[in-house]
């Protein structure tokens, strides 16, 4: 059983010590754990995490302490610097790992082993250690040494195959989506491993997460492998439409785009009646279009034309609220500005205001309230400055003297 004398359950996750050696591929995993209460220490090279050198920056003025990319993926973490390329750096790392509950990392699979600080070496001093490794294609198999960034993982998972316009090449989701699925699965695996260790009489273990596999599971309802086996077909791109729900899509209206989709026969009848009310066009009431959602597949072009003629009479908000009043799934196509002003998100405990000491950034809303609860809160500390916690960790915990810390710093190790 872990001893957490201070832990009273204010946050969902007990203050487990987690060493974060991830890049953007898995930084969201450690962030999730940090947001909900874990004590996550980001171990950065003395030059800083590479994402500190990625934009965007306030006013586009490059500054490693102001990378909005770094700030987004590293809330509620602490930061220490350490050069794992040196023996003294690795020696310090071994001491940190001996007291850690979890290490989460996203190096290529040989990196830590080649330096003598792989899972097996570290667990020798700490049998309870849990390590999660997130790599593009996993730690085993023919592609284990293949490289992959967001684009390549999105391609190899097949996710891009069904993203984009039908007659154009596959397109990437612009939010660098591949960073989330593997990070989420790694967080689940870590928490399960901690549960097993501390409440199930177990010991530590290693968790291998492939970004490719994780992303494949995020389009399960397209069933790519199954469709091939069953019908000898491949999934493909259908623009904003869908092969799953008909009609479905994003449609232009007076002041933007409205997203709408019809699943049940009752929903279709309600939509057809509304379109008829507005346009007076009798064709929409045709028996041929009624029924379950797949029954309309062959009429999709006509139905879309009827819908467009109808939608242009309204604003996004009019369609959204009146559609929902009629029990139809109508949703606005939102920009970032819309999200920040959205009354539902504001009411859902979703945004956490984080005040940055840096006036170039100021007060910013972060999307940390994935779970809303009267019982627990997320934390709301900004991402750390580089090496902000060196003294607290190296002196306060490892017992180095200020002089030793100064020497390691002068030698470029910390």
């Amino acid at each position, binding site marked *: 059983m872990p001893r957490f004398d201070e832990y009273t359950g204010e946050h*969902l996750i007990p203050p487990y010590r987690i060493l974060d050696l991830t890049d953007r591929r898995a930084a969201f995993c450690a962030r999730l754990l940090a947001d909900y209460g874990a004590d996550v220490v980001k171990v950065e090279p003395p030059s800083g995490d590479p994402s500190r050198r990625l934009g965007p920056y306030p006013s586009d003025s490059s500054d490693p302490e102001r990378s909005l990319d770094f700030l987004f993926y590293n809330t509620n973490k602490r930061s220490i610097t350490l050069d794992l390329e040196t023996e003294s750096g690795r020696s310090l790392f071994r001491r940190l790992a001996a007291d850690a509950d979890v290490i989460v990392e996203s190096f290529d699979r040989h990196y830590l082993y080649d330096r003598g600080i792989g899972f097996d070496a570290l667990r020798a001093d700490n049998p309870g250690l849990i390590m999660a490794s997130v790599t593009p294609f996993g730690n085993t198999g023919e592609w284990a040494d293949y490289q992959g960034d967001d684009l390549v993982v999105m391609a190899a998972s097949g996710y891009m195959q069904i993203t*984009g316009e039908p007659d154009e090449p596959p397109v990437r989701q612009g939010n660098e989506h591949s960073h989330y699925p593997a990070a*989420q699965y*790694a967080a689940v695996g870590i928490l399960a491993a901690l549960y097993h260790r501390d409440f199930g009489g177990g010991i530590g273990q290693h968790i291998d997460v492939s970004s490719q596999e994780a992303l494949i599971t995020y389009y399960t309802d397209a069933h790519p492998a199954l469709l091939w086996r069953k019908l000898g077909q491949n999934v493909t791109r259908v623009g904003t439409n869908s092969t799953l729900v008909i009609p479905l899509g994003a449609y232009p209206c007076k002041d933007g785009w409205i997203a709408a989709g019809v699943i049940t026969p009752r929903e279709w009848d309600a939509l057809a009646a509304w379109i008829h009310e507005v346009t007076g066009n009798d064709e929409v009431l045709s028996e041929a279009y009624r029924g379950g959602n797949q029954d309309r597949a062959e009429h999709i072009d006509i139905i879309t034309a009827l819908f467009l003629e109808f939608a242009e009479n309204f604003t996004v908000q009019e369609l959204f609220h009146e559609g929902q009043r009629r029990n139809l799934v109508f949703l606005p196509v939102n920009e970032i500005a819309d999200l920040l002003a959205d009354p539902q998100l504001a009411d859902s405990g979703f945004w956490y205001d984080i005040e940055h000491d840096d006036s170039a950034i100021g007060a910013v809303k972060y*999307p940390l309230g994935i779970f809303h609860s009267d019982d627990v809160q997320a934390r709301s500390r900004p991402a750390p400055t580089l090496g902000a916690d060196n003294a607290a960790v190296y002196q306060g915990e490892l017992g180095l003297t200020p002089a030793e810390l100064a020497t390691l710093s002068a030698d470029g190790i910390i």
Partner: protein
Amino acid sequence: MTTAVPQTQSATPSALTGIRVVEFGPYVALPLTGRILGSLGAEVIKVETNKVLDEMAFIPAWSRGAGQPEYQRGKRRITLDVRTDAGRDLILEMVRISDVFMTNFRRNVLDRWGIDFPEIRRQRPDAIIMWQTGLGGHGPYYTYKSFGILVQHLSGVSLMTGLPDEPPGVVNTSYSDYHTGVFQPAGIIAALMRRNLTGKTATLESSIFKSGVATCGPALLDYQVNGRGPRRRGNRDAWAAPHGVYPCAPDPVSGDADRYVAISVADDDQWARFRKAAGDPAWAAAPEYATRLGRQRNQDALDAAISEWTQPQESAMLMDTLQHAGVPAGIVSQGTDLNDSAHLKSRNFYQDTQYWEAERGVKATEWVEGESVSWSIPAKMSGTPIAFGNYSNIGQDNAYVFGDLLGLTSGEIADLEAAGVIY
């Protein structure tokens, strides 16, 4: 009634051995959460009824339930009409012997059935409650309907995808349902730890909407700090060039012409490797491509030249060639590639499974059995099993749950079946 299938037993205890979960709700996100918890060793009791089938058994239309194992493996599946008094009493009895209650029904629906959260707490004061909704359990949209594909639009992701002169770009899948489905087990396991350490329980609310917005990334900060919305730039990237997908030769097996390879060259070293892998053709030696800045400035010409080079090549071989040279590259996988992938096979990612062909108006126990395929949970754990799990049909575990767990006699169960309660 069919016999209950014994769930897989393993010598090593699973991570969540001893945890029992009541899963109450259809579609994608909630069942995925249940499947993950089940694969980690929790006993997940899924409450369904033949009277109202999960629409996912008919989406896509051709699947007829063949895709359901991916969401429903490793659970104890029972039938219960909770709209009856006896049905309501039985689900509450299940709550009494469970650690977690999770549902995706809306507040007004739960209230109508008398399975509201205060009642859950009365039955089991320390139950962890996970309440998942589309747009939010409270607040101005709490009665509103949604589903995962469209939440890509609602959550801001579609206006980051594609090109400015095209409709908002989406992936043909229930996007944020999956985020929700994988966030929730993390919240539940953490809440169990917290309960064990402090004795305090928790009710957690999640929504498909919030899970989607959480993936907007640094663009959320860029807007607030710089007042600038995301640029829709197709496959291009400020940090790499070339960075895109390039057309390849028709598939040698299927003949499908829709074949592409993604190539991402982040720096000059990778560009040198790319040139070498390509046999250093004259076009690649052009001085304007020598630096990243130059490649960024001349992307249209560069992409055209690379496309001409990739067009006659077979995509999978090209991926291997580039990867062996140290260039990040990947085929845009189709179902054929995923199904046949030696890499995924070696990791045992897809596994064969039986399923039952869903048919409206026919009791699930009468459905025809068939062969399907399902993925395995993508967190490979070295110390505790990740169970692929057995696949029960709807109602197949009635005898185990109502008899072995709740202590009903077979006569009582038969009476409840006859009364349409267990149905």
